[in-house]
């Protein structure tokens, strides 16, 4: 094939390793130059945000860390954003996981949101710490709310200056963690949470936790947010929403996002965050309403994504120019297979 030597032929049959190299360069550049391009919010994400914003400490949210470290770049900012929103509004958060690796991701998210070295985070108090504390002549109510506990706790403790508030394990969040065959567990939680999770991830008995006492079954949970890189989201829809009516929201990777828009239109879910963009939109709203000092990782990641998308569009244009200029549309010539 002697004719394969023109510039168009070379471009048309470009070795894919050049594309890989270009992509690598393009995703690294934005790390050095912060662009901070503005992001507009969409109905899909606003649906979740407004729903969580209408909740308060007598309600509860369940967040499913239904992904693995693989999709963490897209999924982790979503769960952290929703969790931050809940913490700021003092809404208790139950944390579950479809896969064993979800436990570590949940711990990581809590650690990030309660990092003492970062301004604008929360100050965490572990369950054993506040539960076994001596409150003097005041007894601790068994169904103590966040505000009641803060009043008692702040007599002897002071909130870090740059912290956004307290977060008490067992009152504001509990990591229930991974359980095998999670769809069956979801069904079981419709009857009782304690029956499915007698202890949390750290072995603390859940039946003594105020947030579990106030929300004994998943029926009393006001929103389930499943953040996932697989179709585990449908378990929540089938077994939590359809069987006992828990309102559900999805957080899925960009690759899957279009699959589940159907459920949004049919009204079966309250909203959906799709990929990094979904998480970035949530972060923008959090900052707008003062729930965070600045946007998080997703917002910064959108710069990278912008440039990467531009590269792909340029590649498509180049490919098509080569396709026509090289005469491939006429001669019926074909792309070489493989490399």
């Amino acid at each position, binding site marked *: 094939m002697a004719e394969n030597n023109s510039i168009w032929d070379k471009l048309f049959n470009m070795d*894919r390793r050049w594309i890989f190299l270009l992509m690598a360069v393009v995703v690294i550049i934005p790390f050095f130059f912060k662009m901070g391009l503005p992001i507009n919010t969409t109905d899909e994400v606003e649906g979740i945000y407004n729903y969580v914003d209408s909740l308060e400490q*007598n309600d509860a949210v369940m967040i499913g860390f239904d992904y*693995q*470290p*693989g*999709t963490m770049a897209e999924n982790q900012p979503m769960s952290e954003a929703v969790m931050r929103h809940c913490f700021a509004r003092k809404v208790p958060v139950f944390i579950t996981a479809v*896969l*064993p*690796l979800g436990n570590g991701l949940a711990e990581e998210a809590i650690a990030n949101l309660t990092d003492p070295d970062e301004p604008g985070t929360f100050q965490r108090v572990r369950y054993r710490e506040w539960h076994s504390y001596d409150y003097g002549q005041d007894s601790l109510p068994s169904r103590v709310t966040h505000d009641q506990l803060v009043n008692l706790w702040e007599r002897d403790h002071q909130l870090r200056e740059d912290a956004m508030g307290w977060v008490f394990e067992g009152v504001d969040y509990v990591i229930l963690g991974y359980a095998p065959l999670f*769809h069956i567990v979801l069904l079981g939680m419709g*009857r*009782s949470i*304690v*029956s499915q999770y007698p202890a949390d991830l750290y072995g603390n008995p859940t039946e003594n936790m105020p947030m579990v006492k106030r929300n*004994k*079954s998943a*029926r*009393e949970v006001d929103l389930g947010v499943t953040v996932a*890189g*697989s*179709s585990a989201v449908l378990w929540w829809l089938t077994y939590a929403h359809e069987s006992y009516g828990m309102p559900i929201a999805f957080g899925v*990777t960009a*690759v*899957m*996002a*279009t*699959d589940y828009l159907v459920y949004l239109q049919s009204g079966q879910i309250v909203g959906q965050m799709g990929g990094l963009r979904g998480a970035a939109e949530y972060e923008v709203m959090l900052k707008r309403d003062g729930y965070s000092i600045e946007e998080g990782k997703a917002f910064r990641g959108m710069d990278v994504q912008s440039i990467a998308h531009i590269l792909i569009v340029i590649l498509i244009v180049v490919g098509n120019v080569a396709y026509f200029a090289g005469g491939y549309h006429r001669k019926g010539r074909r792309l070489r*297979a*493989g*490399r």
Partner: protein
Amino acid sequence: MLSLRATVPAMVLFAMAGNVLAQQGAGVLAPPGEVTVSDVPNDGGDQLLVCFEPSPDDERVNSYTVYRRMQGEGDDAWRPVRVLFPGQGTSFVDGRDPDYSVRPGQIYEYRVTALSESGEATGPVYVAEEAADGEWFNTNKVRILIGCAVFLGLIFFFFSKAQSGDKLYLRPIPGIEAIDEAIGRATEMGKPILYIPGLSTISDVATIASLTILGRVAKKVAEYQTPIMVPNRNPIVYTVAEESVKQAYLEAGRPDSYDPDSVFFLTQSQFAFVAGVNGIMAREKPATNFYLGMFWAESLILAETGSLSGAIQIAGTDAVTQLPFFITTCDYTLIGEELYAASAYLGREPKQLGAIKGQDYFKALVMLIIFGTLVLGILDVLANTDLVAWLDHLVTSPAAG
């Protein structure tokens, strides 16, 4: 529609008198009013809908506590079944709290206490006229029942039609026809075949469809004496896949050629599985890759690596978002239901073909209904009628009654 009002027995009047606590300052808090209890329809007889009239001083109330006891029990049997805060309304479904479950057929008594800054006030005791009762048919599922009946009817009709020897035409699907060709190619090249039955669990129908195809592929492979590799992500899928391949070798008359290491469990972790499979592709260079079953974000990583290694690739999945990736990188792709049909195509058993026909006719019926409803909907807008609502009522009228 099922709501029945509870009555106030004379005996409770003195109970309320003793429970209203007067406090200084804000005056006496008026107790909450009448409690009505009704059975929740279409449940297992373990739920009651409880509504109560709020206290006339509702704006001063911090919370309402609803107490319950079984009829005939003493004063110490009252149990606080629910606390309702302002904004949470004055009705709830009783029986959802696992600590205070409702027994079917049991008559309960209720009373409500309002709590404010200045004190509390307890309303009178009400005896529920209705007990929780489980139903034998969920009237919300009439439409589903009708749909299922029609579907089952069509499937069984075509089962019998196929068995009586009628020739049923099925359009050819290139991806399925290529399966034999792909196995043949691997045999000629003397290289192994890689078969991935998806990454999902056995409860996913795509996985089951894939395992049925695996049985047929393995039988061919056994006849041709081509090596096959089946990595698995799910332990249950692994056991079924192993049994499937072993049985295929037995049926092909070559049980001794079966390599017990050919079907294996890799890992449950999604991307570790991808790394493992990509490693196999890079090292073993299989001539043919099958990706049949459920795939997620890893689909492109698998298929692109396979395409780099120069293998013939046949994919099939019902994960709609992954289809574009497979179509771009594989030689043949089975789209959605084609994956389920593949087993019938390969086996050509009359009953299997009948099921496909039945399914197709049902689909045609649904298309007609969608189109018909669309036309009626347009008519509704143009002529200002209520045809769609009327049609909906026609289907669900048993529930309304």
